[in-house]
């Protein structure tokens, strides 16, 4: 039972991280219809930039994450302008390879600046609390709480604010939106900036319980795809449900089946879901 509680909390913390990363990916997909394979490297860069502010510059933890999110938002916008904007009318094969090119580049940049060896980033939040016999570290609780807060703010932003509403408008009807004066180009930039910032928050939160390495985003990249497929490409609530579901499935499978099965579960989910529903669970009407 203790083990179960322990795994439940680990799963929730992991779910929080997955959600934050997956939402960015799903927003990009919803607005630009790009399967952004470089998303994992934005997450990786986010972690390193947070590390830079926290360890090298020495600002407090929360501020470091905030500053890094701003820096990454700028990088996200640049990525959209330089790489994906010129490709806006190209088929998804071209996006994928361009993303792979960007991925190579970002990883090489991280290695050139910070080296290939692992880095450790300590957060000021230490210690743990005992819940029903299980040891839960505060960092994990912070991850879950922050994820919930950020998701709340994001939902408010998209539903209530003018800028946010333009994102949803574009997602729903690109032509109609441009007719009423929404610039798809601006929305694309906004989306990329937002997605990169969210990935940074996820990375900044998880880095203290893990390690930094230029390849840290690779595994995440594939998993977030599983999440957004599960939740329906472009769907925000879907990404949230998908993030937590997949994280829990992963943790529980590794606990009660085997570690290798836990690693494969994300891909089994993709195959299973798409085999049954070729357009994903919770799929919305897809505009072309």
């Amino acid at each position, binding site marked *: 039972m203790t083990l179960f509680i322990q795994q439940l909390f*680990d799963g929730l913390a992991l779910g929080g*991280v997955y959600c934050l990363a997956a939402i960015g990916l799903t927003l990009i997909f919803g607005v630009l219809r790009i399967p952004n394979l470089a998303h994992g490297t934005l997450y990786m860069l986010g972690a390193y930039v947070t590390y830079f502010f926290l360890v090298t510059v020495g600002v407090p933890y929360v501020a470091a994450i905030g500053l890094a999110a701003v820096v990454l938002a700028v990088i996200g916008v640049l990525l959209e302008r330089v790489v994906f904007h010129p490709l806006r009318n190209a088929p998804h094969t071209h996006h994928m390879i361009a993303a792979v090119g960007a991925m190579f580049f970002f990883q090489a940049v991280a290695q050139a600046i910070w080296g*290939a060896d*692992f880095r450790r980033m300590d957060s000021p939040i230490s210690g*743990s609390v005992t819940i029903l016999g299980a*040891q839960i570290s505060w960092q994990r609780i912070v991850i879950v709480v922050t994820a919930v807060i950020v998701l709340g703010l994001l939902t408010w932003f998209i539903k209530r604010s003018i800028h946010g509403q333009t994102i949803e408008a574009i997602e729903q009807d690109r032509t109609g939106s441009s007719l009423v004066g929404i610039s798809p180009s601006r929305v694309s930039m906004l989306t990329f900036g937002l997605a990169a910032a969210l990935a940074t928050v996820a990375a900044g939160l998880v880095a203290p319980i893990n390690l930094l390495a230029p*390849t840290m985003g690779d595994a995440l990249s594939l998993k977030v795809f599983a999440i957004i497929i599960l939740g329906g490409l472009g769907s925000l609530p879907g990404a949230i449900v998908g993030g937590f579901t997949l994280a829990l499935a992963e943790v529980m499978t590794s606990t009660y089946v085997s570690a290798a099965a836990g*690693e494969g579960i994300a891909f089994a989910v993709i195959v299973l879901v798409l085999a049954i529903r070729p357009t994903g669970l919770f799929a919305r009407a897809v505009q072309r």
Partner: protein
Amino acid sequence: MAPMRIRPGATVTAAVCAGVLLATSACGGGGGSGSDTIVIGYSGPLSGGAAAYGKNIQDGLQLAIDELNNQGVTVDGEQYRVELRSLDDQYAPDAAATNAQRLAEQDDAAVVFIPHAGGIQAAQELNSSRTEFLLGAYSSDPKIVEQGNELTMMIPPSFESYAEPFVDKLTRNGESRLGLLGTASEYGQEWTKLVTQEWKSRGGQVLSDNSIDYGTVSDFAGPVSRTLAENPDVIFLGGPSQPTAVIIEEARRQGYEGSFLLMDQAKFEEMEEFTDPKNLNDAIGVKPVRNYDDPGTEDLLDAYAEKVTKKRPVTSEVALNYQSAAIVVAAMEQAGSIDDPTAIREAIPDAIGEVGEQFHVSGFPTEITDAGHLRNQDLEAAYRTPDGEYEYLPIEQPDE
């Protein structure tokens, strides 16, 4: 559909095809080095997930080469400069083999170092039949010398020599339950198998295998609590030092008080930088390089701090390759040849005794077996006591 005469467009098409040819011949023509240079080849992971590991080995080789050039290298009466030529293979066997061939043919490297078992085996397919080069094999997997390749020099001790003394040491107080939490790499799997056999042969109980890929798992707490849930007395773990340190820390945080049996990839000196050293108490692993008092140890530590970095300690990856680069060059001097891999390999037994003392840094080899394994008869393991002191225990090496 098309007219019958040649159109200008064809020239462009032709140009591209010519380009392919040109690229081919450009690659074919390049390379080679001056006659007064000895090129040592190296193909390892310089980018990607294992880049830090690849860089360590590269540093070890480069430091040795710098030192050799300082002293001057004379082969068959002629002065030479030694030069390291490195290529990136991202840990892929096929890329390593291609690189080795390129180094041997274009840069005239008679010796090529490769630091991963897959790449070594792929290169052995080549140097046994086609392109000749002596393979400096940095992998503690014994199968790289079991296949009878005549041009292989295996650098580190075989990991098989560790399992028995490690298990011996950690079962002295009747410990019987072994938890498995190694890394899911090739190497980790082999180790897990070996330790499992050894543990069972003494009637101990091996608990469920919780091996995870240290490089891709984003949260170690889960696997650790799964392992602890079965109440192990000893936990086997290890992969790259840094994640290993984090896992050990997590286990201690969750209240584990037993011992750790560390596979040789994880290094105490690196882990001490990553976690409170107290967490590492009651663990057995390989002996830290700085704890050797060989004649050259201090100098290597200084040179590393000065030329490479002060932030990381010297590990056995650096030290062992530092030694072996010196052995290879000494073998060239003995053989009187810089380009005959067979002669160089045959000269190694004599060369070992001729290598200058400053290259003796961490258990310098005392012999090379017929199969090509560099061995040091006084190999020691390190046990970090519950008080944080290091104890050293001798390791018997299996016959080959």
